[in-house]
């Protein structure tokens, strides 16, 4: 017997680390040493805040490299890291380090940002809370998905997989346990990093309706 799906949500408190970078080398040096939760924060902040409607790259590192250091090609390379490909934040950190290190070796950039445009490292403390919603069947899951908040959707689809080191998003894992293997696999293929959370909600519901056995 599979337990009902308990919808949760996550809220975050942002901490300032008092560490800043003025050059690409300083950015790299600090990416190597800051806590995992700092890498997570700077690669997911904009997604969580639903800023995808804004004309900005998807992560803070890419934005700063492009806009403040004015290194457009590296900014684009960092912006297009395929985060869905990574199973945890440490492997994502390694990829960031590799891309930036390679660029420094090849191009030897020496730019320093203007005062006031330094990169400020932060991290977040995440608080996970239960919501009032539960689902015991595929149909109930679809119904609740229409109503839950975007932070709740974010938590189950993105944060749970990458930050809590679960192998898959929570919906796929639950559906798999329920015997709905086809829909579980199809959902796991959705890339949340190139779509707004509202768009993700619609795609999830459509995918479940299409592939679930009724």
């Amino acid at each position, binding site marked *: 017997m599979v337990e009902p799906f308990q919808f949760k*949500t996550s*809220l*975050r*408190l*942002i*901490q*300032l*680390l*008092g560490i*800043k970078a003025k050059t690409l080398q300083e950015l790299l040096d600090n990416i190597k040493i800051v*806590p*995992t*939760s700092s890498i997570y924060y700077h690669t997911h902040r904009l997604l969580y*805040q*639903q800023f995808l409607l*804004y*004309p*900005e790259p998807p992560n803070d590192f890419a934005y700063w490299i492009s806009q403040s250091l004015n290194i457009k090609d590296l900014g684009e390379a960092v912006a297009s890291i395929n985060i869905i490909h990574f199973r945890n934040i440490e492997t994502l950190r390694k990829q960031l380090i590799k891309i930036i290190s390679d660029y420094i070796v090849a191009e030897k950039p020496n730019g320093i940002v203007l005062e*006031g445009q*330094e990169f*400020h490292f*932060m*991290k*977040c*403390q*995440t*608080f*996970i*809370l239960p*919501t*009032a919603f539960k689902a015991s069947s595929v149909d109930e899951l679809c119904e609740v998905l229409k109503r839950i*908040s975007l932070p709740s959707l974010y938590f189950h689809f993105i944060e749970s997989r990458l*930050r*809590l080191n679960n192998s898959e998003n929570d919906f796929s894992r639950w559906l798999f346990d329920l015997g709905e293997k086809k829909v579980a696999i199809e959902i796991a293929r959705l890339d949340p990093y190139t779509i707004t959370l509202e768009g993700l909600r619609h795609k999830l519901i459509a995918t479940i309706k299409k592939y679930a056995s009724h």
Partner: protein
Amino acid sequence: MPAIKDYIPIVGQDTIDELYLLTEKFGNRIVQNINSTSVGGGVAEILMRMIPLLKDLGADVRWDVIKGDEKFFNITKKIHNALHGVTVELTEQDLEYFLFINELKRKEINFYGDIIFIHDPQPVALINTKNEIGKKWIWRCHIDFTEPQSYIIQFLESYINKYDRAVFSAPSFARKLNIPQVLISPSIDPLSDKNKELPDDVISKVLEQFSIDKSRPLITQISRFDYLKDPLGVIKAYNKVKQYIDCQLVLAGGGATDDPEGMEVLKEVKNAAADNPDIHIIFLPPASDIEINALQRASTVVLQKSLKEGFGLTVAEALWKAKPVIASAVGGIPLQITHKYSGILTYSIDGTAYYLKQLLNEPEYAKKLGENGRRHIKNNFLITRHIRDYLLLFLSLFYEEDVVYL
């Protein structure tokens, strides 16, 4: 005063449910806020709004004010300016007197809270009580800390490092401290007199009261009369624009009880504007929120040309009213405005004049900036987000790990 349920139509039921849940998890611990002024200034204003709402949610949050004499406030004003990077003469005797008043108050105050929440530098040295009574202590800085005079920051840091948490309004204020530093932006209350919707006749009445012509464009800066808000720079920018566009300028603001410098600045601004009937210098008494609201709503463009800024709540207020805003890229203002998307960020008098002309000549573009600005404020800078951050901050004092299951 609005109840917490009154915010549901603005932010949604989910958001309010989350606040109730967080309050429940916080339990019946008492939070004791302490600052140095009960009226005027952003700190008192936000406490006045937040505390009743936190109480409505079920949290036991209270507020005490330490009263100092004129000498104390003159010194704290100098400390304030030195933190903003201004060169001021702050003697050892001044700092001794500052500590003397703190010590006096420390002995008077009943520290009944489980969490003692100290606001700004004035009462910072009350932390000396921690050795005697323990409890959790938070220091909330509402001031721009970007380039403080080094001697004053060294002096304050010896106290700040004794707290359990320091809270800043913008990332650039972070320092190398021995304690965790939390980022919490301030907020505006969409249901307050300063921000609620106003009927047209109320706006018209306020314009009549100050002899402002409704038929011509209006540029407004709302802020305390303070050199750091650069009212003289605003007049210079306006004069450059006025040569090409027939428009009016309003400089309106009040004064805080801990700001004795204000009257001197007001006099200088009046002198600078003396021969121009289209420049309106308005000194507002406390409780002029409806007037401020009306002036902002009647404006064609709103300015915030500060040289230094804590957060710059007046920017959020104007954006919430969907007004195009031109503001300096200082303090927390860049958090509120993405340049050319949700407002304009400037660095000079000439830049301010240039963009003023552009927005006055291109109302459609100006309108789009205002609409984007309003959406950004709705998502990030309303009082409900602030309450959530405070509840998380209080809870964080009891959980050290990065991921907390409540």
